[in-house]
């Protein structure tokens, strides 16, 4: 049920867009909904981040993954156990761009004996990399539609991407990566029993949604011819705040666009916020210089101490008898 429901939901969303197109609500689905989704995304994202930022960081609690900086002749692991802000930035860089922690993944297997065997496992890392980099490139591609003239780097990306040409028009490497990534992430979620057990509707829904977006996008590009000039006119209208609704854009485009809008509107309320949260994780973004540089807790608790004087009172006779000083 936790798998099927979100699937229906996404199909339902696609149908909604199709119906909207059929009854000529292009203005709603082509202009209003995208603006609304963008607004929800931006405001929601900011509200969430501000909300996180409002909570205090009482202690410096990095998870140290390498040798601390201590004696000068002991080799310090600068990235895994950063001491300076620069080193923290490096650590975050590897985390955000290369998924360092996932790369570290090991898999344990209990065999008879008993013996536990460990080995590296990179599948999750690989799927995640394909998915995220595919996604990033696809988004960059779409800037083609929202810019005029198309900036050099985007055009270049286009060329590079299309170099790995399969068929004509060229299948972009990026959309392929994204598609494989999303399918792989879905498959491991349903096939690995433990992961299936922990998965919620909120985990399947974005996967189906993104799958729907990729498929409708690819359909549009390779099978159902879409008037790209009209699409560009619509998108340019949106980004320049002079919205127009050109004639003759097929239903498939509106389905694609609507699913994208749903993703954006859903984003701030979901786990997808990990995109912002990863930067705010105190186990990763703080330096391991705890004993060298004091961290201040804004709400440091006041406590009642059992003082030395009270302690001496508790044991005075015994202390004196044993000759332990009590001053």
């Amino acid at each position: 049920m936790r798998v099927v429901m979100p699937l229906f939901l996404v199909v339902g969303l696609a149908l909604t867009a199709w119906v909207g197109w059929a009854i000529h609500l292009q203005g709603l689905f082509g202009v209003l909904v995208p603006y609304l989704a963008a607004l929800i995304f931006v405001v929601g994202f900011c509200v969430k981040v501000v909300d996180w930022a409002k909570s205090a960081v009482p202690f410096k609690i990095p998870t140290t993954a390498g040798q601390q900086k201590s004696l000068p002749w002991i080799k310090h692991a600068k990235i895994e156990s950063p001491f300076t802000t620069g080193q923290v930035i490096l650590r975050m860089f590897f985390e955000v761009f290369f998924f360092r922690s996932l790369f570290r993944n090991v898999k344990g297997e209990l065999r008879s004996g008993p013996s536990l065997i460990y080995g590296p496992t990179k599948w999750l890392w690989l799927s995640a990399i394909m998915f995220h980099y595919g996604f990033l490139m696809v988004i960059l591609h779409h800037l083609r539609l929202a810019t005029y003239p198309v900036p050099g780097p985007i055009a270049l990306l286009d060329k590079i991407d299309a170099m790995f040409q399969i068929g004509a028009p060229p299948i972009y490497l990026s959309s392929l990566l994204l598609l494989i990534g999303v399918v792989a992430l879905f498959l491991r979620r349903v096939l690995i029993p433990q992961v299936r057990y922990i998965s919620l509707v909120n985990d399947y829904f974005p996967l189906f949604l993104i799958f729907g977006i990729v498929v409708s996008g690819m359909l549009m590009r390779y099978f159902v011819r879409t008037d790209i000039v009209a699409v560009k006119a619509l998108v340019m209208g949106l980004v320049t705040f002079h919205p127009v609704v050109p004639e003759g854009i097929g239903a498939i485009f509106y389905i694609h666009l609507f699913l994208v809008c749903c993703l954006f509107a859903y984003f701030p309320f979901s786990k997808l916020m990990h995109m912002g949260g990863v930067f705010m994780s105190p186990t990763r973004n703080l330096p391991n210089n705890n004993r060298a540089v004091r961290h201040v807790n804004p709400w440091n608790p006041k406590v009642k101490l059992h003082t030395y004087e009270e302690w001496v009172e508790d044991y005075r006779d015994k202390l004196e008898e044993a000759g332990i000083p009590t001053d």
Partner: protein
Amino acid sequence: MAVPKPNELLKIDHKPPKKWWMDTKPTFRPGTYSYPSKPKNIEILDMWNPREWSPTDEDWKLPEDWKERILEGFRDLLKKYRSLKVFMDICVRCGACADKCHFFIGSGDPKNMPVLRAELMRSVYRGEFTKAGQILGRWAGARELTYDVVKEWFYYFYQCTQCRRCSLFCPYGIDTAEIDLAGRHLLNLVGCNINWMMEPAANCYKVGNHIGIQPHSLKDMIDFFVEDIEDLTGVKIEVPFMKKGAEVLFVTPSGDFFADPGTYTFMGYLMLFHEIGLDYTMSYYAAEGGNFGFFTGTIENAKKLNAKIYAEAKRLGVKWILGGECGHMWRVVHQYMDTLTGPADFLEVPKSPITGTVFENARSTKMVHITEFTADLIKHGAIKLDPSRNAGIKATFHDSCNPSRGMGLFEEPRYVLKNVVPEFYDMPEDTIREKTFCCGSGSGLNNDEFMEMRMRGGLPRANAVKYVRDRYGVNTLSCVCAIDRAVLQPLVNYWVPGITVTGVHELVGNALVMKGEKKRTVNLRQEPIPGMEEEEGDV
């Protein structure tokens, strides 16, 4: 209670059950849970709802407003800890952490997967604090806080040793230990805590050490150590206590005073300090470096105990503080002490009086780890060591979780070890250093009634020991943690017999060549040293 035989225990099924986790409840089976705190300990620490009760009872005698108390406490923590707040929101349930937890590996219970342990709390967060959760309920992975949820929390939040292994592998650094600490705090609010955590904390607060040995008795014990050392080495040493104006205050976990094999490690420190002529003192008032208050998740408790160290350093007028071998003590000293009870501006930046080395990394907290200190001595050739006095020992090293993932102390103890034992072998790479496996008994779970889970949780560690035992003939498991010294011995006896657990400074004590000593024929444990038997005399 008897723990099942190893081959019985090994029938572990890692496949989750048919029933979804929101529909299952824990069974409080002997061996898998710890006994609740006695009321008096709760009272000493000035905490909530002291009473007699048992987890197997239907009625846990929670206060009438238990739900409001927990929810209000939860809201409060979300404001106070960004870690908790962010971790409640961003888990993607990728499962990378799932098989990293020693309790999951050893028990197969799906709720011991860190992600699910955290979901136990996250589901309540969604259900009680988010609109979507309130409307969609289970469809949004949300649920209400019920009496049964409290029971489930108690079961699983006291089945986590706060080792942070999961946080190492999580792509967002989600630290289930941090969530566990928060969960335990919420449980405290309604009086659900365990005795093995609360009693040591109460003792440390009131008496000054975790067993609650009164100062004059402690003095007698120290005298015994002095006699033992004289018997073994022929050198008479002094152990300064409450000495005003000493240069250094030495604080170690009090387990070192009274529990074998920690006592041998303690003798090692004393011999070392004597040999280098360190001007130091110890204190009966602040005789405990360990901090069971930290385990309670109620940070005030950690402060109540930790603050005694600075208070005593100030009163005695020392220049800096040296800390003994302990795991969680060092998590607290390294990551919390300065913030919680500092600034220690009445102390000086630590400087070794022997080598002149300034410990820049401890510039603010002013507290140095004993293996940092000793490694520096060895590097400078300031002490004479004879590894052949540890003849026959093939050692490996257990990285305790807290100094590993909460400090990054890896090379210092290894450097010391390699200089005092004839042979050293590390365990497999994926089981040491930052990836180290927990002893399975940390965070207040080192009690006897929890033995079955301890053996389960310790399986991965024990198994790595087995690997080096079978391959290299390793017979000694050394560590820098008082809890480890106490719990690893029963663990290896159960899974890999034939291994001896020692502290690092016990081995230093054996190897240390002292001025004016007699020929040593036995080690600190009074066991004959191979190759150094008495020449003349008995057969």
